[in-house]
């Protein structure tokens, strides 16, 4: 009793000591494992694989980055970035109304159940969920059956016959992959948006109506700008998670390469760690540019 009180008093009058005690472990973690591995990655990306001997040359070179721009690699980057962008935009459109309802209208039990419902999928294994989607989307799967029962098979066939996004079945098309990505990352979009919307006071929305703004105008000039930091936070999750994922492109879709799967192959079977590292830097660079653009657009002005 006396000892704990003395420790407490000793620390209370020395806030800096408390701070050091509190932060040493996380800072060590951040510095060594987090930033350490990241810089190791960055260094690796400037080495290159000697194609003749198959060994890694540990010398500074832009050669590996140059390899990124070969047509096939550029294809992978564009395909991945395009998918990530589509998934992000799609998620915003599905997440926003739900987040809006959760933050502004739902109360008590309903609200709790909605939050539970949104986060519940995160409790189960990611792999199980992706494979179950494969079954749902398969040609003989649940979704095709429901669609045919609804008499909408023509719509599905039309969709699948489209170039690029179509394919032999939903589970072998980019569109199917898009659906699975969106399903998997949706909670990461809903939660930051609803958190941002919850911070918008009721009175600010009232004030806009009071000053003569119709609901649409209020939405564009008040609600959306104030929720935008949440949208950006959510899109950072969906965008970067899609950029780095290698499981969904393997399970769903026509097994064409995405950044994640290239990284996996390059550093696994191909042994080209520098190229894998350079590929990993691509999402980081894209996110950097994206955040700069978001800041330019004033996404963080309301913070």
């Amino acid at each position: 009793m006396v000892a704990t009180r003395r420790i407490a008093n000793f620390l209370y009058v020395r806030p800096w000591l408390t701070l050091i005690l509190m932060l040493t472990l996380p800072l060590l973690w951040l510095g060594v494992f987090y930033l350490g591995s990241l810089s190791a990655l960055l260094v690796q990306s400037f080495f290159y694989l000697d194609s003749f001997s198959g060994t890694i040359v540990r010398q500074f070179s832009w050669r590996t980055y140059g390899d990124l721009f070969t047509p096939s690699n550029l294809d992978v980057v564009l395909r991945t970035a395009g998918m990530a962008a589509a998934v992000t935009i799609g998620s915003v459109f599905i997440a926003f109304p739900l987040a809006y309802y959760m933050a502004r209208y739902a109360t008590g039990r309903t609200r709790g159940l909605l939050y539970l419902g949104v986060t519940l999928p995160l409790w189960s294994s990611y792999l199980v969920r992706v494979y179950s989607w494969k079954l749902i989307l398969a040609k003989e799967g649940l979704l095709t059956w429901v669609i045919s029962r609804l008499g909408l098979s023509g719509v599905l066939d039309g969709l699948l016959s489209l170039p690029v996004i179509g394919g032999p079945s939903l589970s072998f098309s980019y569109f199917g992959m898009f659906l699975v990505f969106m399903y998997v990352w949706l909670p990461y979009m809903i939660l930051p948006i609803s958190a941002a919307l919850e911070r918008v006071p009721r009175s600010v929305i009232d004030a806009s109506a009071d000053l003569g703004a119709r609901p649409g105008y209020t939405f564009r000039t008040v609600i959306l700008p104030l929720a935008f930091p949440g949208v950006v936070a959510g899109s950072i999750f969906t965008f970067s998670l899609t950029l780095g994922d290698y499981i969904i492109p393997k399970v769903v879709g026509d097994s064409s390469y995405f950044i994640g799967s290239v990284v996996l192959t390059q550093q696994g079977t191909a042994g080209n760690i520098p190229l894998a590292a350079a590929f990993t830097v691509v999402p980081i660079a894209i996110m950097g540019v994206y955040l700069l653009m978001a800041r330019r657009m004033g996404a963080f002005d309301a913070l």
Partner: protein
Amino acid sequence: MSQSVPAIRLKEVSRHFGAVKAVDGVNLDVQDGEFFSMLGPSGSGKTTCLRLIAGFEQPTTGSVQLYGAEMAGVPPYERDVNTVFQDYALFPHMTVGQNVAYGLMIKKVAKTERDRRVADMLDMVQLGGFQNRKPSQLSGGQRQRVALARALINQPRVLLLDEPLGALDLKLRQQMQIELKTIQKQVGITFIFVTHDQEEALTMSDRLAVFNQGKIEQVGSPAEVYEHPSTRFVAGFVGTSNLIEHETAKRIVGEPGTYSVRPEKIRLCPPDSPIPNDSFAADGTIQDVVYLGVNTRYVVQIAGGELTVVEQNLDSTSMDALAARGRPVRLIWQKAHMRSISD
């Protein structure tokens, strides 16, 4: 005051939230150009009444009229009223200038005129040159002024103020009370001012309504409401009041009933002082003395109850006042200052 069409007319207005009757059968006329206060404790329905006038709430029953026009089904953005919110509700992502210009943007007023009117309005609330600040860079009093400017720039026919001074400290509040009054005279529009501060309501209003449990207890000028409280609630809520009832009333007045008399109307006299014909009197002992600087409050024990007396400290010092504890006194007050009230 013109007796033509009232600025606001509430007819048998009720607003129920489930089983809670937030507003319960309110009838009220507010005249054009009046500074009208809605006074009451929290939960008395005054803010709900304001929200009914603004259009954020629709009445469960009854009708809200604005200059004779029925407001049922008319949304806030189509009503010619503007509101100053309790928490100011400034748009945090906009500058002061953009906040004030918001209403004009919606009306698509040209930029040059908009800028001019924003500058004029900010000058009026003494924030000239603050256009490019963000609300987060302002003090509470300055935010308050921005909220006022943002509402007034639309030249509404009625300005609604929801406890706008509640978050300010005493000095600033008193200064803003005077400024609000000045601005109201300057722009000449109807102000409806919601407050739980009876002093604020008394000093600022032309007329006021006292709310209690969703109903209006009394409507009148500050002097009327203060001098002639018509119910027990008003007597207790607006200023402090002595209630004399039951046996005590019968003994002093000669007739049963409930009467109220303000503490400052009662004089402390030596025992055995003569009782003038136009006055009532009661004998008692000083129980407690609270020295308040400007005046002193005495609690006097009389047969069957206690009376509070407030005297100006004209000659007395704190020492004199405090020494009076335990002293027998005769309390005398004019009959005209005693009011019969209903429950």
